[in-house]
Structure formats: structure tokens, C-alpha cells
């Protein structure tokens, strides 16, 4: 449960806006001060520090102005620092003009104003933070990709073989000593992999945008630009998107899958066609072709990756993504239905444009009787009247 929660919030952090709390606190103090007169300022200080001297605070002597100036410098440098590191919307510009005006209004003596200006200029001209080289590698791979011609066979240190089917651009290590994984970086091409079983050291192949993770198995992988075609001859592999690991499939013996950069689908008859299109007919393919009989067992419909959801969870995600466009009106729904879990495609829960909402509601009808109407005054807005159990 915790993990699911973490993952959900993790996926939404780009929606989270971070204001500068120090500035907001200052702004808050000004408001409180303004609404309640000078007296409240002493309240603030007596609450947060033991030695309060209201009259001194009220008359704002020079040392307080120095502290305010120092605070301003700190805030400006924090702004510069944050602006460099976070390009996400951080609203920091707004309050600062107020603060600067505030300081000016309080008749700051000139000797303080000048160093302040110099400091700000110095900070503006400071070079951006240099990002250090701190990249973590597990396997030290050779730097260059190798282009390997068709028909060549590469034998890896563990005995696994890579039969090159068409010209392939690939990187692989000379030895697996000290490695926690057997890692192959396949930029493009098509390869028949025969992987020796080793449960302690998973075998991973990565293309431009997809990954295949296996323990021991025989499979073909075709990587063409962003399209990856995987066929399993024996064993089971996990096929996943590098950009989003939640897009993944477990592909079994006799099954296949295609990932085009966005969607991952199981495939059936397409297998033969794909091979014909991409790979010239060669004897080596007899192996693959023979196993096609097993490919008939693949599932009928291409499947979108799904997870278990309940209406509460769905509402939470939909509210974040589609906001006012949809409201499941959970309060009108029976508790037993609200808590019922069902499989729902991830794609229609928390990603994509508002156009997806229509499809999402349609899919919801696979599990419930949904009484809804599309609203006229808004392009992709829906009103749900009730959700009941499917009859």
C-alpha cells in the first residue's frame, strides 16, 4: 500500500509547486503586523525568542535594519540558487519587490543600502552551479558501440550466445566478473539471444527506449528506432519501457510483444510479418519459424498494462489530472462499490489529455453501471449521476 502511495505521488511531483517559505513567512508577518498595529510585532518576537524588548523592536533601530538587510541578501541568494537548480515553477519573484520596498521604506541608512546593492549584483553575476560528474555505473562497459554484421555469433563470458541476424550496433562486456547483472546495450539491429540461466545475475538487454530482463531463455529482439519487437522462443522475460517502468509485460514462451515508444502490446500473427519485413529470409530463421506454432497460443486481444484500482483511488487521480472536468460523486455511491477493486488500464488513470476522459469513463462501464452525461459548456467535462454494481 505504502509503495503504491509513494509511486502515485512520485509520478505527480511535477504538479507540486514550491513557494519560498521564508518569503511567505515574512509576507505573513507583514500582514499580521499591518492588521493589528505595532503591538503584534512584539507578540511575534516574544513568542519566538526569550528576550523580547517591544519598544526597541517597534522603533526599528539600525541593527534590526542590518538584520533585515542580511535576511534579504540570504533570500536573494536562495532565489538565485533555487532558480539554478529548479526550473520547475517556483514563485519567488513576486514577494521580493515588496520586501525590497519594505526595507527602503524603513529609512535604511545609506551605508547599508550600498553593500546590499553590491551583493545583489555580485550574486546575479555569479556563475551557475557547476554540475559535478557523479554518474553511477554498475558495469564498466567499453566506450564504443560495435557494429556487428549479420550471421556473426558473439559468445559472452557466461556462455550465452548472441546470433546477429541483421547488422547490429551493440555494446557488451568482455567479462561479468564482479557484476551484479549481465548487461547488453543494443542500439539497433536484430539479435537472437540464447541466455544461459543464472538467477543470481539477471541478463538485461537495453535498446534506445526499452529493456528486456531475463534469467535464462531464448528470444529474439529487434530494435528499429523506437520500435522494439520481442519474440520468446523459450523461457519468460520482462519487457519494459525505459522511460516508464510501469509500462511492462511479462512475455512467455511462444508469445511476443511490440513496444513503439508509447504503447506496449502483445502480438500474434504480426510476428511473422514483422520478421519478413525487417529480416531477409535466411536459413537461421528456420528455428524461429518452426516455433510459430507455439505463437498461436498468444492471447487474443492486445493488452494495455493495468493495475488494481478502486473508485476512491480513481477519483484521487482523476481529480489531480482532470480536475473539475469530472467528479465521481463518491458520496452518492454505496460503500461496498466504492471499495471494490478492479483492473483498470493505467493509461486512463493518470496520464494523457482531457480527451482520454471519455474513453476512461467508457472503460469504467466494464466494471460498473455508470449513469453519466457529457456537459455542454465544457469540452471534455462529464457529470456522473450514479455508479451502481453491474447487473
Amino acid at each position, binding site marked *: 500500500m505504502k509503495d503504491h502511495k509513494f509511486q502515485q505521488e512520485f509520478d505527480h*511531483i511535477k504538479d*507540486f509547486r514550491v513557494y519560498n517559505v521564508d518569503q511567505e513567512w515574512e509576507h505573513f508577518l507583514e500582514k499580521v503586523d499591518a492588521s493589528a498595529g505595532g503591538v503584534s510585532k512584539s507578540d511575534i518576537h516574544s513568542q519566538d525568542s526569550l528576550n523580547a524588548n517591544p519598544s526597541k523592536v517597534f522603533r526599528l533601530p539600525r541593527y534590526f535594519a542590518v538584520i533585515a538587510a542580511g535576511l534579504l541578501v540570504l533570500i536573494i541568494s536562495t532565489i538565485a540558487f533555487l532558480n539554478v537548480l529548479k*526550473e520547475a515553477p517556483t*514563485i519567488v519573484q513576486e514577494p521580493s519587490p515588496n520586501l525590497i520596498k519594505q526595507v527602503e521604506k524603513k529609512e535604511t541608512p545609506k551605508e547599508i543600502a550600498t553593500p546590499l546593492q553590491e551583493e545583489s549584483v555580485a550574486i546575479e553575476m555569479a556563475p551557475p552551479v557547476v554540475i559535478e560528474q557523479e554518474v*553511477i555505473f554498475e558495469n564498466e562497459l567499453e566506450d564504443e558501440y560495435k557494429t556487428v554484421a549479420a550471421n556473426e555469433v558473439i559468445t559472452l563470458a557466461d556462455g550465452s550466445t548472441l546470433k546477429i541476424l541483421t547488422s547490429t550496433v551493440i555494446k557488451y562486456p568482455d567479462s561479468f566478473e564482479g557484476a551484479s547483472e549481465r548487461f547488453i546495450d543494443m542500439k539497433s539491429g536484430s539479435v537472437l539471444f540464447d541466455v544461459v540461466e543464472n538467477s543470481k545475475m539477471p541478463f538485461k538487454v537495453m535498446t534506445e527506449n526499452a529493456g528486456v530482463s531475463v534469467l535464462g531463455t531464448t528470444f529474439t529482439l529487434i530494435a528499429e528506432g523506437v520500435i522494439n519487437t520481442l519474440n520468446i522462443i523459450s523461457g519468460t522475460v520482462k519487457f519494459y519501457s525505459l522511460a516508464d517502468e510501469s509500462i511492462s509485460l511479462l512475455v512467455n514462451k511462444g508469445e511476443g510483444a511490440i513496444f513503439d515508444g508509447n504503447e506496449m502490446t502483445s502480438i500474434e500473427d504480426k510476428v511473422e510479418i514483422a520478421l519478413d519485413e525487417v529480416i531477409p529470409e535466411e536459413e537461421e530463421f528456420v528455428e524461429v519459424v518452426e516455433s510459430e506454432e507455439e505463437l498461436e497460443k498468444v492471447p487474443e486481444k492486445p493488452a494495455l498494462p493495468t493495475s488494481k484500482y478502486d473508485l476512491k483511488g480513481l477519483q484521487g487521480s482523476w481529480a489531480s489530472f482532470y480536475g473539475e472536468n469530472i467528479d465521481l460523486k463518491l458520496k452518492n455511491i454505496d460503500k461496498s462499490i466504492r471499495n471494490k477493486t478492479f483492473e483498470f488500464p493505467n493509461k486512463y488513470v493518470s496520464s494523457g489529455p482531457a480527451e482520454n476522459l471519455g474513453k476512461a469513463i467508457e472503460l469504467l462501464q466494464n466494471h460498473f453501471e455508470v449513469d453519466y452525461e457529457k456537459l455542454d459548456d465544457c469540452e471534455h467535462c462529464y457529470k456522473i449521476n450514479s455508479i451502481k454494481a453491474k447487473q
Partner: protein
Amino acid sequence: MAKVFTSDLTFEKVFKEYFNPLVNFVNSNINNWEDSREIVQNTFTKIWEVKDRLDIDSSLKSYLYQATRNGMIDFIRSSKRSQSLVDDLKKDSIEVEEDSRKLDSMLIRQEIYRAMDTLKPKNKEIFRLNKIEGLTHKEIAAHLGISVRSVEDNIKRATQVVREVLTKSDVLVN
């Protein structure tokens, strides 16, 4: 009657801890950042005025949630925006639990941001480009001139660190 705000848990600390999660929470309801910021500022002002008389039965978080939610309703009503929104929010039968989960979400997201600050610069940058800017692994690799593999490794590592930090803090616990 024990005071809510003490020398340990000062008003300032509470303000700084809850400000961003509350603003993001309000915005998730009314979809207007400026208004959300104002609502939260006003809420804290109101709490400030009664802070010495405050006696809270529930948790501080629940109290802040409730106070902010009331402030949000008042604000919307007085500014005469979307009447249907007001109606929805006012209804007592609304699942407060489901709405308060939004605040929990925001607290978690704040922790994630803080956890990100503990990452090493390059690691953090790669992570940020992926999770916040939305670049794919391939785009990041091209952008930084490194391999897709090392992008993947960095994101894996950063995720691990963030997850560890979050597990140690209490935000993931209900």
C-alpha cells in the same frame, strides 16, 4: 489546557512546514495558484489571532486541513466564483476523508522535494529532468552527453534514495 504552539513547535515552524502542502491542496480544488496562496495566508492569519486560546482535539494536521478548507469555502463564496463549486464543497456529506487525502498527498510530495535536495547535484539534475521536466531517458542522455544506461542507473539510484528518505519520515504512514 496545553498550548498548541510551544517554544519547540513555534507558529513559524508550523507555517513553514504546512504552507506549500496547503497551497497545493487548495489549488487542487480551485485551480488558481494566486487565490490558493491568499487563502492559506488568510487561514494562518486567522489561526494566529486565536493561537493562545487554541485547544485542538484532533491532530494538528487535521485542524489545519479543516481550517484551510473552511477558509477556501469562505473565499470562494465571497468572491462569487463557480457556485457549483461552492455547493459541492459546502455539503457535509462530502467525503472529508477523501478530500483530506489530497493534503496527505501534498505532504508526501513536499517530502519528495526535500528528499531530492539530499541528492548529489548530477544525480539530482538527471532525476529532475525526468520527473519534473518530463524528458525521456533518451532525451536526457542526449542533453547531458551520457549513455542511456547511466541515465537509467541514476534515476534508479535517486528513486531509491528518495524512497528511503520518505520511509524514514512519517509521511507515508496514515
